[in-house]
């Protein structure tokens, strides 16, 4: 009997797709695998051990960089989400008005410019400001991160706002809620999933940044990625794998959380 003709299949596509998924995950899994290597070599697996995790844990540079990364990412994500939420409220759910396109273009601009260009621009700008003000704290990094996190936070918040039925807010106003009460009791609770998604995206994006941070940071302000970049240019030990594994785990955790939240929503 002839096999049923499948409208959707194309020869070789499934094979390539499967190969693609394997290729996407194999390097990461190998990297994770070698973080448990008992030996010093990256090539030979000499047995299971947590020694490199221990080494990383006892490496004060790693811990300091991690804490700094988390500090910057938290601050930048929160600031970016607040700014993006306000901007999203200002740019959705009404007829187009003068300046709307300008706002879109402006807010999304960090996505359009190559990171390296923004990085050198901030290097030039902040180096002047540092001399001028004498302040050289984490503020510069937080500000820079907030700026490029804004478009990422803006995206899901705007999408959520646009999918929200304006009639609900009208109904609240009809039921004697003032604009502020309507925002507190109706808009904000309904916007919450989008807000959370924006916050997570911004957090992950900030946590991952290496280029801009590398140019903006002052001495002794390494984040985990810039610390790793520095190490990668020297001798590599499985300690790098251990750090990467923990870092990966954190990212995957956040993204998975995000995935299941949005799945539950729809």
């Amino acid at each position: 009997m002839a096999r049923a003709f499948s409208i959707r299949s194309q020869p070789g596509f499934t094979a390539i797709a499967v190969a693609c998924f394997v290729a996407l995950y194999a390097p990461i899994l190998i990297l994770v695998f070698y973080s448990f290597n008992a030996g010093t070599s990256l090539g030979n697996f000499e047995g299971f051990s947590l020694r490199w995790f221990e080494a990383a844990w006892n490496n004060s540079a790693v811990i300091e960089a991690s804490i700094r990364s988390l500090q910057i990412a938290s601050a930048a994500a929160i600031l970016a989400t607040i700014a993006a939420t306000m901007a999203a409220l200002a740019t959705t759910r009404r007829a187009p008005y003068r300046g709307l396109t300008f706002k879109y273009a402006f807010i999304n601009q960090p996505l359009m410019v190559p990171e390296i260009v923004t990085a050198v621009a901030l290097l030039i700008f902040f180096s002047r400001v540092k001399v001028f003000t004498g302040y050289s704290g984490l503020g510069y990094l937080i500000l820079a991160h907030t700026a490029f996190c804004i478009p990422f936070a803006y995206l899901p918040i705007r999408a959520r706002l646009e999918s929200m039925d304006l009639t609900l807010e009208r109904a609240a106003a009809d039921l004697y809620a003032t604009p502020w009460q309507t925002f507190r009791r109706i808009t904000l609770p309904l916007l919450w999933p989008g807000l959370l998604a924006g916050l997570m995206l911004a957090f992950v994006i900030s946590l991952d940044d290496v280029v801009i941070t590398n140019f903006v940071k002052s001495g002794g302000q390494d984040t985990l990625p810039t610390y790793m970049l520095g190490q990668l240019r020297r001798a590599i030990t499985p300690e790098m794998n251990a750090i990467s594994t923990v870092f990966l785990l954190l990212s995957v955790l956040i993204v998975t959380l995000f995935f299941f939240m949005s799945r539950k929503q729809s």
Partner: protein
Amino acid sequence: MAVPADKAAIEARGVSKLFGSGEHQVAALDDVFVSVRENEFFTLLGPSGCGKTTLLRLIAGFDFPDSGEILLHGNDIAPLPPYKRPVNTVFQSYALFPHMTVAQNIAFGLEMLGQPKGEVRARVAAMLKLVRMEKLAERRTSQISGGQQQRVALARALAPQPKVLLLDEPLSALDYKLRKEMQIELKRLQGETGITFIFVTHDQEEALAMSDRIAVMSGGRILQIGSPWEIYDRPAERFVADFIGETNFLTGEVKSVEGESATVVLASGAGIDATYPVGTQPSGRVTVVIRPEHAQAVQPGAGLLSGTVSNVVYLGTDTHIHVALDDGAHFVVRQQNARSGPCGHETGDKIGIAVSPGVAQILKD
């Protein structure tokens, strides 16, 4: 038809609303005057885009008129935001808050008005009882059926005891049987609460069944206001006659006017007495409308009109007999199937048509 201002719950005076700008500007409402009496079930009826929903939104305060006044018990409310108007709305989509329970939805307006907790609770309980939803108070609004959502929307809008309740096609999402039930339910609620209802619909049957008075709208204007039977039997304009029910249009010449009726000579030469719209003086060539159920098929030669049967459509409760009149016009007679079997007329038969007295109506030109 004019109602004294103090008796009117809602009055619109010369209200216009424009959308778009420049060449694309359209008047959603064009100099609308209407007065809704207190404790009345008033319906705005018309096809989509006729301006009925716009008028409702202006009364609710979701839009603001470009010109004109909207009076609530004689006070202009046009500049007030929706949350300062003692007017509540039942939305077409119900607009129930998805993150609240049934009871929380109903309590919302009362809470916003700052009523004490105890009173809110009592009022919510009363409302739940009124719409027979006591058992589902703690359900999420996504966990109840469409008909139940409809009841919650009603209870929520009625809870703050508004002066006027606005209903924007609230039954359109329900299936036929449920819609019929809710029509009776709405009528009951209006009677029990004594609140003025302004009801928007495009469904003529719904409008006829429920309303004390109906305003027929088209192209941003109100064409006619009247009781259901006035709208149906005494349409003033072709649009009203055509939009509501089925009808036959005949042309003729006014011969004489006597009191409230005029004698019209039809194209076939036959004369008929017809009523005409208040405030007009019929003369010259006019259009006369006769409802299909107001005509009877009779022996050829008898009756007012004569012609040939062109089609017979059997509809269960009654039969439509399509007739090509001798003067070329087309006429439909609706005959109730009072007994079993075929109606006794066949395509090609010569036939006469009799018209009951006092049913013909002359339209405004």
